[in-house]
Structures are given as C-alpha cells and as structure tokens.
C-alpha cells in the first residue's frame, strides 16, 4: 500500500502546481469563475460532511452562507474588526446556528430533518432581511478591502491564490478528519444509527459536531465570498442556491472525499457560463437573459436525475474507476487499489 502513496501524492502536487499556475495565466473572466467555484467547493465539501458522510439531509446551506456573510459584515462594519477576525466571526456565527439546527436531529432524521432545515432557511433569511433593512435600508452592505497583515487582496490573482490556499487547508483538514475516528463514527451513524450507538458511540455529540463543523465551513465560505464580491445582500441567498449546492454534492459523489470539489467546479462553470454557451450556440434569441436562471434550474434538475439514475455515487466513482484503469497499467503498481481508498494505509 505504501508504494502506492507516491503516485497519488505526485498527482495531487502536480494538480496543485497547475492550479497555482492557472491563476497567473487565466483571463480575468475565467479567473473570476474559478474563484467562485473554489469558494463553492469549500461549501460543497462542508455540505458533504453532513449529507454524504453523516447522512443528515440539510437544505439550510444558503442560510448558513448568509449567516457567514452577515456575521462578517457585522464584524467588519459595526465591530470594526480586521478581515481575518470578521470572517471568523461569520464562520462562528454559522457554527452556532448549525448547532441549533442540529439539535432536532437527535430526535428526527431524513425527510423531517430536511423540512426542519428548510424552515430554518426561511427564518434566517427573514431575520437577515430585517437586520439589513434596519442597518442599510434598501441597499446592500458594502464591505471594506480584505487585508491580511501587509497583504491586501485586490486583484483577482491575489484572491485566487488566497482562496486556493484556503481550499487546500480546508480539504486537508476535512480529509484527515474523515479518514480517522470522527469520519468512521459519522459514517457508522449514516449507516445505522442504532448500531452505531450500540458500538458505544455517543451519537448525539457526533451529529452535533458534524453539523457544527459543516456550518462553520459553509459560513467561512459565505464570509470570504462577501469580501470577494465586496458586497452582501440577503437577496443572493435563495433556495435555488441551496439546491444548487445539494446538486454539487450529489453530482460529485455523496460521501466521497474530493467529489464535491469536482461537482462545485462543473456546476459553477455551467451556471455562470450558460449565457455564453447560448450565445455560441446561437440560442441567445430563443432564451432571453431573464430566463437563463430557469434553464439553469432545469439543467441542474436533469443532471441530478441523470446522476441518480446512472451513477448514484457520482463523478467521484466514475473518476475512481478511470483511475483504477490507469493504475492497473502503471508500471510500479500492479495491485488494484481503489483511488477512493477509505481505510487507513496499513
């Protein structure tokens, strides 16, 4: 098994170098898309934590993004805190909201919990709207420049580097947790809550920690996104957005490690470049700009249905099979080992 670590590590390092390189050379419009996708990837990974690994369905994702963003706004504009402190305030606010949402999961699960998180979405959005109207009236919040020590994030390139570093840090922490005891217990809870309990695991605290950590990361993504866009308003956090995030996780592969990143990139690129695609295809006349969001919703629905029908384990499973096929021909590694190996290396 040890021998097989290095090709994977090498692939990861090459991908990382390519990503850093891409940030420097990509045209501005594309770079903006990539930055947006990387932020979405952080939130999608976080959603996968509760949905894919712990098996708790949450439709509250857009609301957690909103809490993160508003937390950062309050931190920056009203508590006069720096960028790092403000995004931390946003993330912690979201984590606290996550704990509150998770409490019912002690008693309910499945569809009932999903409906619970749905009502959470509307409650939060209403609250945020009230606060925003009281503070800035009908306009959106405007955020100051993001400054970390001597570094000010202004250019898209500097943002790209910063977000990529954040994504890598989040992914490594998430991966470490999932491959160790918390990940095992979370998946045991998803699999069979009663038997997980009979293994001696206190499943309440584990559900809570899964929700808290997930909403912390979603809140973090929301906070950074608000700074990135330099503006935040309750209107951006729609139920559509929450569904889009669920689609990212399902498309990428529920319960996989890196799947949500792939899902986040594909769906962000698709969602943001639909108009351009229509233009190229000459469909711009047929589908007016006002209707692109409907078409987007339809496409997301179609993709979801297709994934559920043809590969319920998502793109991660497809890629993993592709990886197996390549590894099988790899000169040094003759044993077949799943890319998505979940066991600890022995």
């Amino acid at each position, binding site marked *: 098994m040890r021998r097989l670590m290095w090709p994977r590590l090498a692939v990861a390092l090459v991908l990382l170098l390519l990503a850093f390189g891409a940030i420097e050379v990509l045209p501005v419009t594309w770079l903006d898309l990539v930055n947006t996708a990387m932020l979405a990837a952080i939130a999608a990974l976080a959603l996968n934590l509760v949905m894919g690994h712990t098996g708790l369905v949450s439709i509250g994702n857009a609301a957690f993004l909103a809490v993160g963003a508003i937390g950062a706004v309050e931190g920056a504009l009203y508590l006069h805190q720096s960028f790092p402190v403000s995004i931390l305030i946003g993330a912690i606010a979201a984590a606290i909201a996550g704990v509150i949402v998770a409490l019912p999961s002690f008693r309910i699960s499945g569809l009932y919990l999903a409906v619970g998180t749905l009502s959470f979405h509307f409650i939060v959005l209403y609250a945020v709207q009230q606060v925003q109207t009281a503070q800035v009236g009908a306009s959106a919040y405007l955020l100051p420049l993001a400054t970390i020590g001597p570094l000010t994030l202004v250019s898209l390139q500097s943002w790209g580097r910063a977000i990529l570093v954040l994504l890598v840090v989040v992914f490594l922490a998430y991966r470490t947790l999932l491959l160790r005891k918390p990940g*095992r217990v979370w*998946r*045991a809870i998803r699999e*069979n809550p009663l038997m*997980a309990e*009979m293994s001696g695991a206190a499943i309440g605290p584990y559900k809570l920690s899964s929700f808290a950590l997930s909403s912390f990361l979603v809140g973090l993504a929301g906070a950074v996104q608000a700074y990135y866009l330099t503006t935040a308003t309750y209107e951006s956090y729609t139920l559509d957005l929450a569904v889009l995030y669920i689609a990212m996780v399902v498309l990428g592969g529920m319960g996989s490690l890196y799947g949500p990143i792939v899902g986040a990139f594909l769906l962000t690129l698709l969602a943001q470049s639909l108009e351009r695609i229509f233009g190229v295809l000459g469909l711009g006349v047929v589908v007016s700009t006002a209707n692109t969001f409907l078409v987007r919703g339809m496409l997301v629905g179609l993709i979801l249905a297709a994934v559920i029908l043809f590969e319920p384990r998502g793109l991660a499973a497809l890629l993993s099979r592709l990886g197996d096929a390549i590894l099988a021909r790899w000169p040094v590694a003759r044993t077949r080992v*799943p890319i998505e190996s979940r066991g600890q290396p022995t």
Partner: protein
Amino acid sequence: MSDAVLEVRDVSVSYPGGGVALDRASLSVAAGEIAVVVGPNGAGKTTLCRAVAGYLPGERVRVSGSVKVRGAELAGKDPANIARAGVCFIPERQKVFATLTVAENLELARRQTARDPRTAAVDDEHVSRMFPILGERRTQPAGLLSGGEQQMLALARAFMSRPALIVIDEPSLGLAPVVIQTVLGALRQVAAELNVAVLLADQNIINTRELATRLYEMRAGELIQSQTGAAVGDYFAGHGAQAR
C-alpha cells in the same frame, strides 16, 4: 449466583395496544457460560435480547424489571451506555456497517473501549488469525461479504470490543448448515478466549445444542424452563430427537 455476569429479574416488555412480548422473564448467565434461549417464532426471544441491550426503539414500548451486568443496573440506560458497560449486541439483521470497510468496522468496535496501541496490534493479529477471511478482505466494504462472513465480522467486532456479555440474536438465520457450524464454532472460540458470558437466542435447537451450557425455553413471552450442565444434554436427548 453472585458471580453472574448477566442477571435479568422480572423483565416485562409490552408493546402499544397491550401486546405483552415478555412476561416477567428472569435469567442469569455467568462468565464462560453460553445460555441458549430457544422457542418458536414470536415467543419473545428477540425482545429479550433487545431488552438486555437497551435496543427497544419507540417511546410507547413499556419495559419494567431489572437488568444487571457485572452488578451494574442497566435497565433504562441508552444503548451507548449499555455498550460501554460491556454488553455487545449482535442483532439478527444489519449486524455490520455495510458501506464501511471491514477494517473500519473493526476499528469502530475497538476504539470505543479506549485501549493502548500495543494490545491493539496484538488484537489485529489475533483477529486475522481467528478469521483469515477478514484479513484478506480488510479494504472491502462489509456489505460485499457473504452472510456468514458478515456474521464472522460481527463476532470479530465483538472480540475487539472486549465485552463482558455477548448477546446474539438468531446467528444461524439465513445461513447454510455448514456455514452455521463455522459461525457457531467461532462464537465458541471468542467466548472461550474472552471468558465472556453469552446469551444466544435461536429457533433452531439442533444447531445450538452442542454450544449450550445453560438452556432456557421460551413460549409466548414466558421463560418456562431452564436446564444447566448435564440436564441440557438430557433435554436435547428428549426434544432434539423429536425435532429431527
């Protein structure tokens, strides 16, 4: 009786609507003993197992009586606490985590009873010697194992968790006769090595008669007979022959 690992006193369980599944059942099992509860379908064997393990979901199920393990009262505690008190329950179905790998299933059983890494390594080796098939399939999801192999994994998990009491419900359910012998042999081995008390419920008298050191018969929610030692053999000589 003070050396009994499991002591059940007057445990009654009734389901909403007035159905009494278990009527003042009392039994005790000492370390190293394998108590077998036999009885037809619906007699209350599974309810007895679940009452001991704290696995009676639903608020409207009424449970009364006392369940003591190594002297500690466990009635009314939640399954996690009961598990930590040394009770390992292997249910009839869904006895392993199907999408987790074999290694992860084992790891989950071990980590809950915090022990040091040296014994962990010894345990790993021991388990792969006792259950070679599990060693071969460490990285596979447990759901891909056959029924017998899943039962083996459940027993290996039991071994890992170092319980004082193993409660096992219908271990022979859905298994081929030759596999049943292997599984029960493994159970006997685990029980002997850990000097653990075993409470086993099974419809099938023939499969379990060589295993039993203590026998209870259950009918319509009541434990009506108990035999120990040589009497178990006599009982089977009378009933087993007919069953055959």
